[in-house]
């Protein structure tokens, strides 16, 4: 097989924004997201993978051939594995877009050091929200974690770290209405779900960890997706388009972890190879 990896930025994706990966099998003491990304890239290079910096803006079929459109041209392939990943989902409240980079952030490990001895508000209740809230206590003097439910969805050990951290205060059953500020974040407007009371919470930063949104916009109408845009596939990772497979966080599934993505990658690769033998030989 002649294989090329088309990479929009550099390999790693969301793993690169993870401070410590604690659930990668075999790395008992955890491994930094940087290191794990590098190791995976080097491992693939060792077996002869070619990496090309390019962006795909369209996928189409020409008979049995898949045609990938880039900003500068076209790449033709017999089979394609979509591993386009996901990115942090936005809150979707007024002020958010205007204040990105001016106090609104989706990456604690990137922007935490800008908030030394300041007050930050985090949104979310899952694993990422719990990890990042704890990470931010290294810098911030106070971290509020705003969650719409009355308990965290994060794994037990992560939730415990949040609840036991004296710098973190969880604001249960509250939702954001607006992020306020002119040139920088000054406050977030919150609503308490129990009594509908609204109030402004002054802060210097607003960190958003409310799940992910798949990078599948360019595939709409090309392969079947679920309601949120995650790619639907069979148990061999085959999508609704013949010869097109999917792996990783862009897939419709229950659990998004690196180990799951790696497993799907293995299945997709094997299935793609079988497909090539059956259809193209």
């Amino acid at each position, binding site marked *: 097989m002649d294989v090329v990896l088309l990479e929009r930025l550099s390999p790693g994706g969301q793993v*690169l924004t993870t401070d410590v990966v604690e659930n990668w099998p075999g790395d008992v003491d955890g491994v930094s997201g940087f290191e794990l990304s590098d190791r995976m890239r080097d491992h693939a290079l060792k077996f002869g993978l070619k990496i090309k910096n390019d962006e795909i803006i369209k996928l189409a079929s020409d008979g049995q051939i898949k045609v990938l459109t880039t900003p500068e041209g076209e790449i033709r392939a017999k089979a394609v594995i979509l591993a386009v990943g996901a990115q942090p989902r936005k809150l979707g409240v007024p002020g958010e877009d205007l204040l*990105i980079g001016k106090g609104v952030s989706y990456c604690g490990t990137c922007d935490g050091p800008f908030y030394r001895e300041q007050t930050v508000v985090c949104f979310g209740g899952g694993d990422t929200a719990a990890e990042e809230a704890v990470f931010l206590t290294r810098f911030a003097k106070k971290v509020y974690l705003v969650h719409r439910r009355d308990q965290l969805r994060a794994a037990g050990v992560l939730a415990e770290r949040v609840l036991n951290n004296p710098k973190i205060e969880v604001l249960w059953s509250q939702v954001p209405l607006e992020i306020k500020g002119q040139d920088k974040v000054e406050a977030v407007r919150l609503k308490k779900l129990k009594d509908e009371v609204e109030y402004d919470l002054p802060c210097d930063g607003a960190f958003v960890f409310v799940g992910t949104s798949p990078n599948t916009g360019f595939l709409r109408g090309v392969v079947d997706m679920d309601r949120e845009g995650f790619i639907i596939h069979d148990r061999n990772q085959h999508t609704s388009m013949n010869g097109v497979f999917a792996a990783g966080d862009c897939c419709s599934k229950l659990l998004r972890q690196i180990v799951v993505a790696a497993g799907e990658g293995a299945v997709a690769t094997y299935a793609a190879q079988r497909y090539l033998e059956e259809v193209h030989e």
Partner: protein
Amino acid sequence: MSDNVLQVNDDNFEAEILSSDTPALVDFWASWCGPCRAIAPVVEELAEQYAGKLKVAKLNVDESPKTPGQYGIRAIPTLILFKDGKVADQITGAVSKSHLQAAIDKQLA
């Protein structure tokens, strides 16, 4: 690292960027920032592609905290396009090469 990418700091920022005859793109980054690392090869490619027309520079916000403070930078990577010493465009986050090219072309036009 590419020879086309200039390293700037708090001390030479004014001379290299603000007083530059050609427009300049500055990548504000830090070693602990994953998306900064993700976008680094794209910045290098842009430096090569626009050589002579655009000055491309990197500023480490850990080593030079004064300049990012002046521009209100609270998230990285942030890329600022300077033209005649003024901010012409500002982009936060690891965006694609085509996105950056469009922003640069608009300023060079």
